[in-house]
Protein backbone atom coordinates (compact mmCIF):
# COMPACT_ATOMS: atom_id res chain seq x y z
CA UNK A 1 0.00 0.00 0.00
CA UNK A 2 1.59 3.25 -1.15
CA UNK A 3 0.08 6.56 -0.02
CA UNK A 4 1.45 9.78 -1.52
CA UNK A 5 0.73 12.98 0.38
CA UNK A 6 0.40 15.85 -2.13
CA UNK A 7 -1.18 19.29 -2.23
CA UNK A 8 -0.76 21.61 -5.19
CA UNK A 9 -0.13 24.61 -2.97
CA UNK A 10 3.03 24.58 -0.89
CA UNK A 11 3.04 24.96 2.87
CA UNK A 12 -0.39 23.43 3.46
CA UNK A 13 1.02 20.85 5.85
CA UNK A 14 1.97 17.89 3.63
CA UNK A 15 5.02 17.02 5.66
CA UNK A 16 3.21 17.44 9.00
CA UNK A 17 0.44 15.09 7.83
CA UNK A 18 2.82 12.59 6.21
CA UNK A 19 5.11 12.19 9.24
CA UNK A 20 2.19 12.13 11.68
CA UNK A 21 0.33 9.50 9.66
CA UNK A 22 3.49 7.41 9.40
CA UNK A 23 3.89 7.58 13.20
CA UNK A 24 0.20 6.84 13.89
CA UNK A 25 0.05 3.69 11.79
CA UNK A 26 3.70 2.63 12.22
CA UNK A 27 4.38 2.74 8.49
CA UNK A 28 7.11 0.44 7.19
CA UNK A 29 8.72 2.91 4.82
CA UNK A 30 8.76 6.69 4.49
CA UNK A 31 10.05 8.39 1.32
CA UNK A 32 10.66 12.14 1.27
CA UNK A 33 10.14 12.87 -2.44
CA UNK A 34 10.45 16.66 -2.06
CA UNK A 35 14.05 16.49 -3.21
CA UNK A 36 14.28 20.27 -3.72
CA UNK A 37 13.27 21.17 -0.18
CA UNK A 38 13.09 18.01 1.95
CA UNK A 39 12.05 18.49 5.59
CA UNK A 40 10.63 15.19 6.85
CA UNK A 41 13.99 14.29 8.41
CA UNK A 42 13.45 17.10 10.94
CA UNK A 43 10.44 15.26 12.35
CA UNK A 44 11.49 11.64 11.83
CA UNK A 45 15.13 12.01 12.94
CA UNK A 46 16.49 9.03 10.98
CA UNK A 47 19.94 7.63 11.50
CA UNK A 48 21.30 7.67 7.96
CA UNK A 49 23.22 4.47 7.19
CA UNK A 50 23.30 4.30 3.40
CA UNK A 51 24.02 6.89 0.74
CA UNK A 52 24.17 6.71 -3.02
CA UNK A 53 24.87 9.31 -5.69
CA UNK A 54 22.21 9.94 -8.30
CA UNK A 55 23.81 10.22 -11.72
CA UNK A 56 22.69 11.07 -15.20
CA UNK A 57 24.65 9.84 -18.20
CA UNK A 58 25.82 12.82 -20.23
CA UNK A 59 27.83 12.92 -23.46
CA UNK A 60 31.58 13.34 -23.64
CA UNK A 61 33.00 13.95 -27.09
CA UNK A 62 36.09 12.08 -28.21
CA UNK A 63 37.69 14.88 -30.21
CA UNK A 64 40.04 12.55 -32.01
CA UNK A 65 37.12 10.66 -33.55
CA UNK A 66 34.68 13.54 -34.03
CA UNK A 67 34.28 14.55 -37.69
CA UNK A 68 32.38 17.72 -36.81
CA UNK A 69 29.22 16.69 -38.66
CA UNK A 70 26.90 18.27 -36.08
CA UNK A 71 24.33 15.45 -36.06
CA UNK A 72 24.52 15.27 -32.26
CA UNK A 73 23.28 18.85 -32.02
CA UNK A 74 20.53 18.22 -34.55
CA UNK A 75 19.07 15.25 -32.69
CA UNK A 76 19.32 16.81 -29.22
CA UNK A 77 15.90 18.19 -28.27
CA UNK A 78 17.25 20.03 -25.23
CA UNK A 79 20.00 22.15 -26.83
CA UNK A 80 22.46 20.37 -24.55
CA UNK A 81 25.05 19.74 -27.26
CA UNK A 82 25.90 22.06 -30.13
CA UNK A 83 28.65 22.53 -32.65
CA UNK A 84 30.99 25.37 -31.72
CA UNK A 85 33.23 25.73 -34.71
CA UNK A 86 34.19 22.16 -35.56
CA UNK A 87 33.79 20.52 -32.17
CA UNK A 88 30.56 19.90 -30.29
CA UNK A 89 30.26 21.57 -26.91
CA UNK A 90 28.20 19.93 -24.14
CA UNK A 91 26.00 21.96 -21.77
CA UNK A 92 25.66 19.49 -18.90
CA UNK A 93 22.87 21.30 -17.02
CA UNK A 94 20.59 21.09 -20.06
CA UNK A 95 21.16 17.38 -20.73
CA UNK A 96 18.30 15.00 -19.91
CA UNK A 97 20.49 11.91 -20.34
CA UNK A 98 18.47 10.36 -23.17
CA UNK A 99 21.55 9.06 -24.98
CA UNK A 100 20.26 10.02 -28.41
CA UNK A 101 23.42 11.91 -29.41
CA UNK A 102 25.58 8.89 -28.70
CA UNK A 103 23.23 6.58 -30.63
CA UNK A 104 23.24 8.89 -33.64
CA UNK A 105 26.91 9.80 -33.85
CA UNK A 106 28.16 8.17 -37.10
CA UNK A 107 31.76 8.13 -35.82
CA UNK A 108 31.00 6.59 -32.44
CA UNK A 109 32.73 9.63 -30.98
CA UNK A 110 30.39 10.16 -28.06
CA UNK A 111 30.92 8.33 -24.80
CA UNK A 112 28.49 8.69 -21.97
CA UNK A 113 29.83 9.59 -18.56
CA UNK A 114 27.97 9.87 -15.26
CA UNK A 115 27.27 13.32 -13.86
CA UNK A 116 26.13 13.60 -10.24
CA UNK A 117 22.79 15.40 -9.77
CA UNK A 118 22.19 14.65 -6.14
CA UNK A 119 21.97 11.73 -3.78
CA UNK A 120 19.60 9.35 -2.07
CA UNK A 121 20.08 8.30 1.54
CA UNK A 122 18.36 5.97 3.93
CA UNK A 123 18.23 4.72 7.49
CA UNK A 124 15.86 3.79 10.31
CA UNK A 125 14.02 6.25 12.55
CA UNK A 126 14.00 5.71 16.34
CA UNK A 127 10.43 4.32 15.94
CA UNK A 128 11.67 1.72 13.47
CA UNK A 129 10.31 3.26 10.28
CA UNK A 130 12.63 2.80 7.32
CA UNK A 131 13.31 6.33 6.06
CA UNK A 132 14.75 7.42 2.72
CA UNK A 133 15.02 10.71 0.93
CA UNK A 134 16.49 12.29 -2.16
CA UNK A 135 18.47 15.49 -2.23
CA UNK A 136 18.89 17.51 -5.42
CA UNK A 137 22.23 19.31 -5.57
CA UNK A 138 21.97 23.09 -5.38
CA UNK A 139 22.08 24.57 -8.89
CA UNK A 140 20.77 21.42 -10.59
CA UNK A 141 17.46 21.84 -12.43
CA UNK A 142 16.29 18.22 -12.83
CA UNK A 143 14.45 16.87 -9.79
CA UNK A 144 12.72 13.96 -11.52
CA UNK A 145 15.76 11.66 -11.94
CA UNK A 146 16.43 11.97 -8.19
CA UNK A 147 12.81 11.11 -7.35
CA UNK A 148 12.81 8.19 -9.81
CA UNK A 149 16.01 6.85 -8.30
CA UNK A 150 14.62 7.17 -4.75
CA UNK A 151 11.43 5.32 -5.62
CA UNK A 152 13.20 2.49 -7.39
CA UNK A 153 15.85 2.27 -4.64
CA UNK A 154 13.48 1.70 -1.72
CA UNK A 155 10.02 0.30 -1.98
CA UNK A 156 7.56 -1.36 0.36
CA UNK A 157 7.15 -5.10 0.09
CA UNK A 158 3.86 -6.98 -0.07
CA UNK A 159 1.54 -6.09 2.77
CA UNK A 160 3.77 -3.21 3.85
CA UNK A 161 2.78 0.45 4.04
CA UNK A 162 4.80 3.16 2.31
CA UNK A 163 4.13 6.85 2.90
CA UNK A 164 5.54 9.38 0.42
CA UNK A 165 5.83 13.12 1.01
CA UNK A 166 5.48 14.82 -2.41
CA UNK A 167 6.79 18.22 -3.49
CA UNK A 168 4.30 21.08 -4.00
CA UNK A 169 2.85 21.84 -7.43
CA UNK A 170 1.27 19.64 -10.07
CA UNK A 171 4.01 19.19 -12.68
CA UNK A 172 6.53 16.46 -13.41
CA UNK A 173 8.12 16.08 -9.93
CA UNK A 174 4.67 15.53 -8.40
CA UNK A 175 3.73 13.04 -11.13
CA UNK A 176 7.00 11.21 -10.43
CA UNK A 177 6.10 11.04 -6.70
CA UNK A 178 2.70 9.56 -7.56
CA UNK A 179 4.02 6.81 -9.83
CA UNK A 180 2.96 3.41 -8.58
CA UNK A 181 0.98 4.93 -5.69
CA UNK A 182 -2.31 3.39 -4.59
CA UNK A 183 -3.75 6.51 -3.01
CA UNK A 184 -3.28 10.29 -3.09
CA UNK A 185 -3.87 12.07 0.20
CA UNK A 186 -4.39 15.76 -0.62
CA UNK A 187 -3.71 18.34 2.07
CA UNK A 188 -5.32 21.75 1.64
CA UNK A 189 -6.27 24.82 3.63
CA UNK A 190 -9.55 26.75 3.51
CA UNK A 191 -8.15 29.80 1.72
CA UNK A 192 -8.56 31.01 -1.84
CA UNK A 193 -5.05 29.84 -2.61
CA UNK A 194 -5.67 26.46 -1.02
CA UNK A 195 -8.89 25.90 -2.95
CA UNK A 196 -7.44 27.06 -6.27
CA UNK A 197 -4.49 24.70 -5.97
CA UNK A 198 -6.59 21.82 -4.59
CA UNK A 199 -8.60 21.94 -7.81
CA UNK A 200 -5.39 21.51 -9.82
CA UNK A 201 -4.29 18.62 -7.63
CA UNK A 202 -7.77 17.10 -8.00
CA UNK A 203 -7.47 17.36 -11.76
CA UNK A 204 -4.08 15.65 -11.62
CA UNK A 205 -5.23 12.65 -9.56
CA UNK A 206 -8.25 12.28 -11.82
CA UNK A 207 -5.99 12.17 -14.87
CA UNK A 208 -4.00 9.45 -13.14
CA UNK A 209 -7.20 7.57 -12.11
CA UNK A 210 -5.99 7.50 -8.54
CA UNK A 211 -8.31 7.21 -5.54
CA UNK A 212 -7.91 10.27 -3.34
CA UNK A 213 -9.13 11.97 -0.20
CA UNK A 214 -8.63 15.37 1.41
CA UNK A 215 -7.37 16.63 4.74
CA UNK A 216 -8.30 20.24 5.50
CA UNK A 217 -5.54 21.82 7.55
CA UNK A 218 -5.77 25.12 9.47
CA UNK A 219 -9.53 24.75 9.43
CA UNK A 220 -11.33 27.77 10.79
CA UNK A 221 -14.91 29.03 10.83
CA UNK A 222 -13.57 32.08 9.02
CA UNK A 223 -12.11 30.07 6.15
CA UNK A 224 -13.58 29.91 2.66
CA UNK A 225 -16.37 27.37 2.37
CA UNK A 226 -15.64 26.45 -1.24
CA UNK A 227 -13.26 23.64 -0.24
CA UNK A 228 -16.04 21.47 1.20
CA UNK A 229 -18.30 22.16 -1.76
CA UNK A 230 -15.56 21.27 -4.21
CA UNK A 231 -14.81 18.01 -2.39
CA UNK A 232 -18.50 17.07 -2.33
CA UNK A 233 -18.94 17.82 -6.04
CA UNK A 234 -15.87 15.80 -6.95
CA UNK A 235 -16.68 12.89 -4.67
CA UNK A 236 -13.48 13.47 -2.73
CA UNK A 237 -14.02 12.46 0.91
CA UNK A 238 -12.85 14.91 3.58
CA UNK A 239 -10.97 12.55 5.88
CA UNK A 240 -9.92 14.95 8.64
CA UNK A 241 -10.01 18.59 9.67
CA UNK A 242 -7.07 19.97 11.59
CA UNK A 243 -8.02 23.26 13.27
CA UNK A 244 -6.09 26.51 12.92
CA UNK A 245 -4.34 26.61 16.28
CA UNK A 246 -1.29 28.50 17.38
CA UNK A 247 -0.19 25.52 19.50
CA UNK A 248 0.01 23.33 16.39
CA UNK A 249 1.92 25.98 14.43
CA UNK A 250 4.38 26.40 17.29
CA UNK A 251 4.78 22.66 17.75
CA UNK A 252 5.41 21.86 14.08
CA UNK A 253 7.86 24.79 13.87
CA UNK A 254 9.93 22.96 16.51
CA UNK A 255 9.81 19.70 14.56
CA UNK A 256 7.04 17.95 16.52
CA UNK A 257 4.45 15.82 14.77
CA UNK A 258 0.72 16.14 15.48
CA UNK A 259 0.66 13.24 17.92
CA UNK A 260 3.47 14.76 19.97
CA UNK A 261 1.50 18.03 20.09
CA UNK A 262 -1.94 16.52 20.75
CA UNK A 263 -2.00 12.76 21.52
CA UNK A 264 -5.56 12.37 20.23
CA UNK A 265 -4.13 12.54 16.68
CA UNK A 266 -2.90 8.97 17.16
CA UNK A 267 -6.51 7.83 16.99
CA UNK A 268 -7.67 10.48 14.50
CA UNK A 269 -4.99 9.55 11.99
CA UNK A 270 -5.62 5.85 12.59
CA UNK A 271 -9.20 6.65 11.58
CA UNK A 272 -7.96 8.38 8.42
CA UNK A 273 -6.03 5.25 7.49
CA UNK A 274 -9.11 3.06 8.04
CA UNK A 275 -11.11 5.32 5.75
CA UNK A 276 -8.38 5.10 3.10
CA UNK A 277 -8.48 1.29 3.30
CA UNK A 278 -12.27 1.36 3.02
CA UNK A 279 -12.09 3.62 -0.01
CA UNK A 280 -9.47 1.32 -1.55
CA UNK A 281 -11.75 -1.69 -1.24
CA UNK A 282 -14.64 0.17 -2.84
CA UNK A 283 -12.68 1.83 -5.62
CA UNK A 284 -13.19 0.79 -9.19
CA UNK A 285 -10.79 -1.91 -10.44
CA UNK A 286 -8.97 0.34 -12.95
CA UNK A 287 -7.54 2.32 -10.06
CA UNK A 288 -6.18 -0.74 -8.32
CA UNK A 289 -2.65 -1.00 -6.95
CA UNK A 290 0.12 -0.22 -9.35
CA UNK A 291 -2.00 1.26 -12.11
CA UNK A 292 -1.32 4.87 -11.36
CA UNK A 293 1.45 7.15 -12.37
CA UNK A 294 4.09 7.08 -15.01
CA UNK A 295 5.13 3.52 -14.99
CA UNK A 296 5.05 0.33 -13.08
CA UNK A 297 8.02 -0.90 -11.20
CA UNK A 298 9.87 -3.60 -13.02
Amino acid at each position, binding site marked *: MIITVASGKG*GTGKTTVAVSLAAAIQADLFLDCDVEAPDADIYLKPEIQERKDVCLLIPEVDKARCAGCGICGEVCQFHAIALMGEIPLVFPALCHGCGSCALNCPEGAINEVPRILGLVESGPTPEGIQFARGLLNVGEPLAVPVIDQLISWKSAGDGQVEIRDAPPGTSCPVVASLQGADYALLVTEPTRFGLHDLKLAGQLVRELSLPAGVIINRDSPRGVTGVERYCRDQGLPVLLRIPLERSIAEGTARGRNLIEIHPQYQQLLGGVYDKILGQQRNSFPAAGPGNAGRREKT
Partner: protein
Amino acid sequence: MKQVVVLSGKGGAGKTSLVAAFAVLSSMGSGKNSTVLADTDVDASNLELVLSPVEVESREFRGGQIAVVNQANCQGCGLCETVCRFDAVRLVSGFPVVDPLACEGCAACRYQCPEEAIAMQEQVAGRWFLSDTPYGPLVHAHLEPARENSGKLVSLVKQRARDLAESEGYEMILIDGPPGIGCPVISSVSGADLALVIAEPSLSGLQDMRRAVEMARHFQIPTAVCVNKYDLYPEGWEKIRRYCQQHDVELLGNIPFDETITAAMTRGQPVINYQPQAPASKAIEKIWLAVRDKLSRLEA
Protein backbone atom coordinates in the same frame (compact mmCIF):
# COMPACT_ATOMS: atom_id res chain seq x y z
CA MET B 1 15.09 48.35 -15.25
CA LYS B 2 15.42 46.11 -12.17
CA GLN B 3 14.18 42.58 -11.63
CA VAL B 4 13.31 41.47 -8.12
CA VAL B 5 12.31 37.85 -7.52
CA VAL B 6 10.68 36.62 -4.31
CA LEU B 7 11.58 33.03 -3.38
CA SER B 8 11.26 30.77 -0.38
CA GLY B 9 12.42 27.21 -0.94
CA LYS B 10 9.56 25.99 1.23
CA GLY B 11 6.08 26.48 -0.17
CA GLY B 12 3.48 28.50 1.68
CA ALA B 13 6.00 30.81 3.34
CA GLY B 14 4.13 33.92 2.16
CA LYS B 15 5.70 34.74 -1.23
CA THR B 16 2.45 35.65 -2.95
CA SER B 17 1.05 37.71 -0.05
CA LEU B 18 4.32 39.64 0.07
CA VAL B 19 4.48 40.23 -3.70
CA ALA B 20 0.83 41.40 -3.75
CA ALA B 21 1.59 43.90 -0.98
CA PHE B 22 4.75 45.05 -2.79
CA ALA B 23 2.65 45.52 -5.95
CA VAL B 24 0.38 47.95 -4.11
CA LEU B 25 3.30 49.81 -2.54
CA SER B 26 5.10 50.10 -5.88
CA SER B 27 2.04 51.75 -7.42
CA MET B 28 1.64 54.40 -4.73
CA GLY B 29 2.62 58.04 -5.05
CA SER B 30 5.17 58.68 -7.74
CA GLY B 31 5.41 54.95 -8.33
CA LYS B 32 2.45 54.87 -10.70
CA ASN B 33 3.22 52.87 -13.83
CA SER B 34 6.54 51.81 -12.43
CA THR B 35 6.24 48.05 -12.09
CA VAL B 36 5.41 45.01 -14.19
CA LEU B 37 4.29 42.01 -12.15
CA ALA B 38 5.14 38.44 -13.14
CA ASP B 39 3.84 35.25 -11.53
CA THR B 40 6.30 32.47 -12.30
CA ASP B 41 4.67 29.85 -10.07
CA VAL B 42 3.02 28.44 -13.18
CA ASP B 43 1.98 25.20 -11.42
CA ALA B 44 -0.12 27.05 -8.88
CA SER B 45 -0.41 30.66 -9.93
CA ASN B 46 -2.06 32.49 -7.06
CA LEU B 47 -1.07 36.12 -7.54
CA GLU B 48 -4.07 36.59 -9.85
CA LEU B 49 -6.37 35.69 -6.94
CA VAL B 50 -5.46 38.83 -5.01
CA LEU B 51 -4.74 41.42 -7.70
CA SER B 52 -8.16 41.55 -9.45
CA PRO B 53 -6.67 41.15 -12.95
CA VAL B 54 -8.59 41.98 -16.12
CA GLU B 55 -7.34 39.90 -19.01
CA VAL B 56 -5.88 41.82 -21.94
CA GLU B 57 -4.29 39.03 -23.90
CA SER B 58 -4.20 35.26 -23.63
CA ARG B 59 -2.13 32.81 -25.67
CA GLU B 60 -1.63 29.09 -25.87
CA PHE B 61 1.65 27.73 -24.59
CA ARG B 62 3.04 24.85 -26.59
CA GLY B 63 5.90 23.23 -24.86
CA GLY B 64 7.09 19.74 -24.56
CA GLN B 65 6.60 17.20 -27.28
CA ILE B 66 5.74 13.55 -27.19
CA ALA B 67 6.42 10.67 -29.52
CA VAL B 68 3.49 9.52 -31.65
CA VAL B 69 3.67 6.22 -33.51
CA ASN B 70 2.12 5.76 -36.93
CA GLN B 71 1.03 2.15 -36.54
CA ALA B 72 0.56 1.72 -40.32
CA ASN B 73 4.32 2.08 -40.93
CA CYS B 74 5.44 0.24 -37.79
CA GLN B 75 7.00 -3.21 -38.26
CA GLY B 76 6.98 -3.94 -34.54
CA CYS B 77 10.79 -4.28 -34.29
CA GLY B 78 10.80 -2.85 -30.76
CA LEU B 79 13.90 -0.69 -31.19
CA CYS B 80 11.95 2.29 -29.83
CA GLU B 81 11.30 0.44 -26.59
CA THR B 82 14.96 -0.55 -26.34
CA VAL B 83 16.39 2.95 -26.75
CA CYS B 84 13.88 4.75 -24.50
CA ARG B 85 15.51 5.52 -21.15
CA PHE B 86 12.29 6.83 -19.63
CA ASP B 87 10.28 3.59 -19.92
CA ALA B 88 7.79 5.55 -21.98
CA VAL B 89 7.46 3.11 -24.88
CA ARG B 90 6.17 -0.39 -24.37
CA LEU B 91 5.21 -3.03 -26.91
CA VAL B 92 1.62 -4.10 -26.45
CA SER B 93 0.70 -7.11 -28.60
CA GLY B 94 3.67 -6.39 -30.80
CA PHE B 95 3.14 -2.66 -31.30
CA PRO B 96 4.61 0.28 -29.42
CA VAL B 97 2.40 2.32 -27.10
CA VAL B 98 3.72 5.63 -25.75
CA ASP B 99 2.90 6.72 -22.20
CA PRO B 100 2.49 10.49 -22.64
CA LEU B 101 3.23 11.20 -18.97
CA ALA B 102 6.51 9.29 -19.04
CA CYS B 103 7.68 10.53 -22.46
CA GLU B 104 10.49 13.04 -22.03
CA GLY B 105 10.26 14.26 -25.63
CA CYS B 106 13.89 13.36 -26.35
CA ALA B 107 13.08 11.90 -29.80
CA ALA B 108 15.62 9.09 -29.38
CA CYS B 109 12.98 6.63 -30.63
CA ARG B 110 12.12 8.83 -33.59
CA TYR B 111 15.70 8.86 -34.83
CA GLN B 112 16.25 5.13 -34.25
CA CYS B 113 13.05 3.91 -35.90
CA PRO B 114 14.12 2.21 -39.16
CA GLU B 115 10.64 2.70 -40.67
CA GLU B 116 10.38 6.40 -39.77
CA ALA B 117 7.09 5.55 -38.13
CA ILE B 118 7.52 7.92 -35.19
CA ALA B 119 6.85 11.65 -35.21
CA MET B 120 7.23 14.17 -32.43
CA GLN B 121 4.11 16.12 -31.60
CA GLU B 122 4.07 19.36 -29.65
CA GLN B 123 1.58 19.49 -26.84
CA VAL B 124 -0.56 22.30 -25.59
CA ALA B 125 0.86 22.57 -22.11
CA GLY B 126 -0.95 25.62 -20.83
CA ARG B 127 -1.78 29.28 -21.44
CA TRP B 128 -0.14 32.54 -20.56
CA PHE B 129 -1.89 35.83 -19.95
CA LEU B 130 -1.26 39.52 -19.90
CA SER B 131 -3.68 41.28 -17.56
CA ASP B 132 -4.28 44.74 -16.21
CA THR B 133 -4.41 45.17 -12.46
CA PRO B 134 -4.90 48.34 -10.42
CA TYR B 135 -1.19 48.12 -9.57
CA GLY B 136 0.32 47.57 -12.99
CA PRO B 137 0.34 44.93 -15.71
CA LEU B 138 0.56 41.28 -14.68
CA VAL B 139 2.03 38.48 -16.79
CA HIS B 140 0.92 35.08 -15.53
CA ALA B 141 0.37 31.56 -16.79
CA HIS B 142 -1.38 28.28 -16.16
CA LEU B 143 0.53 25.08 -16.75
CA GLU B 144 -1.81 22.15 -17.13
CA PRO B 145 -1.40 19.51 -14.43
CA ALA B 146 1.13 16.77 -15.17
CA ARG B 147 2.89 18.75 -17.91
CA GLU B 148 6.60 19.19 -18.29
CA ASN B 149 8.55 22.25 -19.27
CA SER B 150 7.48 24.56 -16.50
CA GLY B 151 10.94 26.13 -16.79
CA LYS B 152 10.24 27.02 -20.41
CA LEU B 153 6.90 28.61 -19.48
CA VAL B 154 8.60 30.57 -16.70
CA SER B 155 11.14 31.91 -19.22
CA LEU B 156 8.31 32.91 -21.53
CA VAL B 157 6.45 34.76 -18.75
CA LYS B 158 9.63 36.61 -17.84
CA GLN B 159 10.41 37.43 -21.45
CA ARG B 160 6.94 38.94 -21.92
CA ALA B 161 7.35 40.97 -18.74
CA ARG B 162 10.77 42.20 -19.89
CA ASP B 163 9.53 43.14 -23.36
CA LEU B 164 6.70 45.11 -21.82
CA ALA B 165 8.93 46.82 -19.29
CA GLU B 166 11.44 47.79 -21.96
CA SER B 167 8.96 49.00 -24.56
CA GLU B 168 6.88 51.02 -22.12
CA GLY B 169 9.57 52.26 -19.79
CA TYR B 170 8.71 50.45 -16.56
CA GLU B 171 11.35 50.65 -13.86
CA MET B 172 10.90 47.30 -12.24
CA ILE B 173 9.75 43.72 -12.72
CA LEU B 174 8.49 42.10 -9.56
CA ILE B 175 8.49 38.31 -9.80
CA ASP B 176 6.55 35.87 -7.63
CA GLY B 177 8.72 32.75 -7.71
CA PRO B 178 7.82 29.07 -7.43
CA PRO B 179 8.72 26.95 -4.39
CA GLY B 180 11.73 24.64 -4.43
CA ILE B 181 15.14 25.11 -6.01
CA GLY B 182 14.82 23.14 -9.28
CA CYS B 183 14.14 23.92 -12.92
CA PRO B 184 11.30 26.50 -12.71
CA VAL B 185 13.03 28.30 -9.82
CA ILE B 186 16.32 28.50 -11.68
CA SER B 187 14.44 30.00 -14.65
CA SER B 188 12.74 32.51 -12.37
CA VAL B 189 15.98 33.80 -10.80
CA SER B 190 18.03 33.98 -13.97
CA GLY B 191 18.93 37.58 -14.72
CA ALA B 192 17.42 38.94 -11.48
CA ASP B 193 19.02 41.93 -9.76
CA LEU B 194 17.86 40.79 -6.35
CA ALA B 195 16.43 37.58 -4.91
CA LEU B 196 14.45 38.15 -1.74
CA VAL B 197 13.99 34.91 0.19
CA ILE B 198 11.03 34.88 2.56
CA ALA B 199 11.57 32.43 5.39
CA GLU B 200 9.45 31.01 8.19
CA PRO B 201 11.13 30.62 11.57
CA SER B 202 10.40 26.90 11.75
CA LEU B 203 13.10 24.24 11.54
CA SER B 204 11.85 23.28 8.08
CA GLY B 205 11.60 26.94 7.04
CA LEU B 206 15.22 27.44 8.07
CA GLN B 207 16.40 24.35 6.18
CA ASP B 208 14.57 25.39 2.99
CA MET B 209 15.66 29.03 3.23
CA ARG B 210 19.28 27.91 3.29
CA ARG B 211 18.80 25.90 0.10
CA ALA B 212 17.07 28.83 -1.62
CA VAL B 213 19.85 31.24 -0.59
CA GLU B 214 22.53 28.79 -1.71
CA MET B 215 20.77 28.30 -5.05
CA ALA B 216 20.44 32.05 -5.74
CA ARG B 217 24.07 32.60 -4.79
CA HIS B 218 25.16 29.68 -6.93
CA PHE B 219 23.88 31.73 -9.88
CA GLN B 220 25.54 34.89 -8.53
CA ILE B 221 22.26 36.65 -7.79
CA PRO B 222 22.47 39.20 -4.95
CA THR B 223 20.33 37.73 -2.18
CA ALA B 224 18.54 39.06 0.89
CA VAL B 225 16.17 37.50 3.43
CA CYS B 226 13.03 38.55 5.28
CA VAL B 227 11.15 36.51 7.88
CA ASN B 228 7.42 35.87 8.01
CA LYS B 229 5.62 35.04 11.30
CA TYR B 230 8.96 35.77 12.96
CA ASP B 231 7.48 35.81 16.48
CA LEU B 232 5.94 32.33 16.19
CA TYR B 233 9.10 30.54 17.24
CA PRO B 234 11.77 32.88 18.66
CA GLU B 235 14.54 30.26 18.71
CA GLY B 236 13.89 29.59 15.01
CA TRP B 237 14.08 33.30 14.23
CA GLU B 238 17.35 33.52 16.13
CA LYS B 239 18.74 30.66 14.01
CA ILE B 240 17.78 32.50 10.82
CA ARG B 241 19.35 35.72 12.09
CA ARG B 242 22.56 33.91 12.96
CA TYR B 243 22.64 32.12 9.59
CA CYS B 244 22.27 35.46 7.79
CA GLN B 245 25.02 37.00 9.87
CA GLN B 246 27.42 34.10 9.33
CA HIS B 247 26.77 33.95 5.60
CA ASP B 248 26.71 37.67 5.01
CA VAL B 249 23.10 37.73 3.84
CA GLU B 250 21.23 40.89 4.65
CA LEU B 251 18.09 40.42 6.79
CA LEU B 252 15.77 43.09 5.43
CA GLY B 253 12.94 42.80 7.93
CA ASN B 254 10.49 40.72 9.93
CA ILE B 255 6.75 40.30 9.55
CA PRO B 256 4.87 39.38 12.74
CA PHE B 257 2.31 36.58 12.95
CA ASP B 258 -0.81 38.52 11.97
CA GLU B 259 -4.12 36.94 11.01
CA THR B 260 -4.81 40.01 8.87
CA ILE B 261 -2.69 38.39 6.15
CA THR B 262 -4.96 35.34 5.95
CA ALA B 263 -8.07 37.49 6.22
CA ALA B 264 -6.89 39.68 3.33
CA MET B 265 -6.15 36.63 1.20
CA THR B 266 -9.58 35.17 1.99
CA ARG B 267 -11.11 38.42 0.69
CA GLY B 268 -8.89 38.40 -2.38
CA GLN B 269 -7.05 41.59 -1.51
CA PRO B 270 -3.46 42.57 -0.86
CA VAL B 271 -3.00 43.04 2.90
CA ILE B 272 -1.83 46.65 2.42
CA ASN B 273 -5.22 47.56 0.94
CA TYR B 274 -7.24 45.49 3.34
CA GLN B 275 -5.74 46.94 6.51
CA PRO B 276 -2.92 49.43 5.91
CA GLN B 277 -2.40 49.94 9.64
CA ALA B 278 -2.15 46.23 10.54
CA PRO B 279 1.19 45.15 12.06
CA ALA B 280 1.92 42.96 9.02
CA SER B 281 1.23 45.83 6.61
CA LYS B 282 3.53 48.15 8.51
CA ALA B 283 6.28 45.53 8.54
CA ILE B 284 5.92 44.86 4.81
CA GLU B 285 6.13 48.58 4.09
CA LYS B 286 9.46 48.70 5.91
CA ILE B 287 10.74 45.69 3.98
CA TRP B 288 9.70 47.31 0.69
CA LEU B 289 11.72 50.41 1.54
CA ALA B 290 14.66 48.19 2.45
CA VAL B 291 14.36 46.41 -0.91
CA ARG B 292 14.42 49.74 -2.78
CA ASP B 293 17.36 50.84 -0.69
CA LYS B 294 19.21 47.58 -1.30
CA LEU B 295 18.67 47.93 -5.06
CA SER B 296 20.11 51.42 -5.12
CA ARG B 297 23.08 50.30 -3.01
CA LEU B 298 23.69 47.38 -5.40
CA GLU B 299 23.70 49.81 -8.29
CA ALA B 300 26.18 52.13 -6.60
